[in-house]
């Protein structure tokens, strides 16, 4: 971004004047910090996604960079809304309250309350449903957008299975699965990957002793790196065969590896 503080201050002051409607000459430290973060957020958005603040003759003025960044934030919010509509189409919560509350009840509140102008860095929601990707470096609409991408990947993965199968796996994992605050996709993926490892149809739920032993040897008795590599290869083949080699889904599912390698999949 490369702007000096002296260049940013007039931008912050202008935003503060707009906020107070020119009817207050001062604001609290907290508000001033909020506006500075808002300006930086928009400028970063421009750098990351919306364009570049550096032009052939040098960099564009800070005010211009902020305004372009603000437009980029608005664009991102619109993209997030489109993505949300896409996610809602045929969305299933499998009876899990946390997933339902976060996606169906929570996300609309974000679009209702998000303030792209004066507080674009505010995510508004706590996003209680845990996804398989670390979103802690994202805030504001960026975080919501990334969260929705995760939910879309989960929907894509889970959508290939009958709802009754997903619910059976969840029930097997936790009889009170409706109230658990855990990732649904991760649990189902753990169960599915066991079937894939022994090449057993999903309709056959029970594993023989030999099959269980093979799964344990593969996932738990090798050193962690080797097990991870094997899991990655099996997942790659699985996504290639059943999900058209979707790179986004493959990357997303790798987020479940640690959980699978640390804890036994629910089918064992």
């Amino acid at each position, binding site marked *: 971004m490369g702007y000096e503080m002296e260049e940013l201050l007039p931008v912050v002051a202008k935003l503060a004047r707009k906020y107070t409607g020119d009817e207050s000459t*001062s*604001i609290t430290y907290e508000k*001033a910090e909020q506006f500075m973060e808002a300006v930086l957020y928009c400028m970063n958005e421009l750098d990351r996604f919306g364009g570049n603040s550096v032009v052939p003759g040098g960099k564009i003025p800070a005010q211009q960079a902020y305004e372009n960044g603000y437009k980029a934030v608005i664009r991102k919010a619109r993209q997030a809304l489109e993505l949300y509509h896409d996610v809602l189409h045929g969305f299933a919560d499998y009876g899990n309250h946390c997933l339902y509350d976060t996606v169906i009840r929570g996300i609309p509140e974000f679009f209702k309350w998000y303030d792209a102008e004066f507080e674009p860095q505010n995510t508004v929601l706590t996003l209680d449903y845990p996804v398989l990707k670390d979103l802690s470096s994202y805030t504001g609409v960026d975080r919501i957008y990334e969260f929705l991408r995760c939910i879309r990947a989960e929907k894509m993965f889970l959508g290939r299975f009958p709802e009754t199968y997903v619910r059976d796996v969840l029930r097997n994992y936790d009889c009170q699965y409706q109230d658990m605050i855990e990732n649904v996709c991760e649990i189902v993926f753990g169960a599915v990957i066991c079937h894939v490892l022994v090449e057993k149809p999903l309709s056959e739920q029970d594993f023989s002793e030999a099959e269980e032993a093979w799964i344990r040897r593969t996932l738990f008795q090798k050193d962690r790196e080797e097990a991870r590599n094997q899991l990655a290869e099996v997942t790659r083949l699985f996504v290639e065969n059943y999900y058209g080699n979707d790179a986004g889904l493959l990357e997303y599912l790798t987020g479940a590896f640690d959980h699978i390698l640390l804890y036994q999949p629910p089918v064992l």
Partner: protein
Amino acid sequence: MDHTWMDLLQQQNLLAEVMKTNQTTAKYGLVLSESDAKLIVAEHSHALREQRRVEFGQGIAGKIIYEFCDSVYIDQNNYVDTVIQLQEIFYLYKNEMLDEITDDELLHFMKEQFETVCFGDLEYLQGTCLNNFAQAIRAGYDGFRRSQGYGEYFRFDEVSRWDYEVYLETLKELCWR
């Protein structure tokens, strides 16, 4: 977050702005020397820091001077001290009123009470009038938006004031009986 950038945000031309008020206040017998103006500006910065506020536009000192310069309770002897105290009170109550009130509304309210209820007593203005008004605003009162801060205090006054109409009625009765 480091607050040094907030100091940079403060306007640097406050001194000239305060000195310029002499053109208006001279007719009320109020004039600031350059050292007076410097003192006001220094105390202004101190008051802002004390109340954890940052100023980004025209300074409040000039607005306070223009609002209060015709007061019957301000003369050349107490002028500088009064302006300094009014600045402190102003920022204190911007915070106490949660920034719900605009600068002009607050100044109108302060001036009106200073003249009519407090008779120039800044302690009464701060500790009673503004305190009562701030409590009402924090509780959700917003009638000052329609009135611009004028004629508000009687709603929140806890003291029975001298009733001029009753006094005149009684005086008439006594004199003309």
